[in-house]
């Protein structure tokens, strides 16, 4: 196949980036429970709604279990942390376009997160006062 013919053939293939843009520019969104809905801004507005609801839920959990003792305090803390991870995930996946962008960006994000988690677990695990542990 000549180079020109190859180029022409490639040009008619659907471009993933173009598809992603079309999807992002649509006001119509199909959601698991609500079905197909139309809102200005499409998926971006739906994600903002989810972020707002999750933030309100966090504040509600905080207020309801304000003076909680163990083990309820631990459960509350874990629940709040999981919700915040979910919110961060929504922003990274949809607003930062990791869902549709080059997969190598996901690796660039994940590697420092793993290194940091291991480091913090180590720091927390060092006994305070024994050998000058971090305090």
């Amino acid at each position: 196949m000549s180079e020109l013919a190859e180029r022409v053939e490639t040009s008619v293939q659907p471009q993933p980036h173009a598809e992603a843009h079309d999807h992002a520019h649509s006001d119509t969104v199909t959601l698991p429970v609500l079905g197909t809905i139309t809102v200005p801004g499409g998926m971006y507005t739906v994600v903002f709604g989810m972020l707002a609801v999750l933030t309100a839920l966090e504040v509600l959990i905080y207020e309801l279990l304000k003076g909680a003792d163990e083990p309820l305090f631990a459960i509350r803390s874990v629940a709040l942390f999981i919700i915040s991870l979910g919110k961060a995930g929504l922003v990274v996946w949809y607003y930062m376009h990791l869902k549709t962008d080059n997969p190598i960006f996901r690796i660039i994000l994940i590697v420092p997160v793993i290194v940091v988690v291991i480091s913090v677990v180590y720091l927390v695990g060092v006994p305070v006062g024994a050998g000058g542990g971090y305090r």
Partner: protein
Amino acid sequence: MAEMTAGSLAHAEDKKIRAHNDNLKMALWLYLASEIVIFSILIAGYVIFRFNEPQFVKNLHGQLGIALVTANTFILLASSWAMVMALRAIQMGNRKQFLQFMGLVVAMGTAFMIGQYIEYSELAHLAVTLNSTTEEFGAIGMRFYAPTFFHGVHVFVGVLVGLQVMWLGYKGFYDKNPIGVELFGLYWHFVDVVWIMLFTLIYLI
């Protein structure tokens, strides 16, 4: 044949621009990766203090409340939405809407900084400063200010760069290739993600 050649050349040019854009995005993601490490160190300092001195943190939460910081959180989340809408507008060739949404981003970033200033003023009245050690709050100052102020500096830089992006957009700089808006968007959303984690770890837990 001439049409095919023109089409294939346009495609080749498009491919080149996309590769260039991907390289720029890769560079920004690498920068954000380094930011993750820096922010994590600052957050870890606070979290370890939280483990070791829970009473001091409880006292601070009791004094501060979460009304102001919750409002600030909603403002930053909304600014992230405005940012992605600005990108969508410029990609669709709607420069007027792009400028409106970018204006919202800059305004909400400024509002966030004002909220943070009010909060810091309240803390100053409680004698929580960088190097203070009080009976009520211990040495929480540096642990609290380091991550939140470092984040605030990022918002400030974001507002300045946002104004520049607005100006360039107004001049038509992004009409052909809006990658500059996308890169700024990545930075702004990252600042939002950091705040999402700070809000939960510092103010709620």
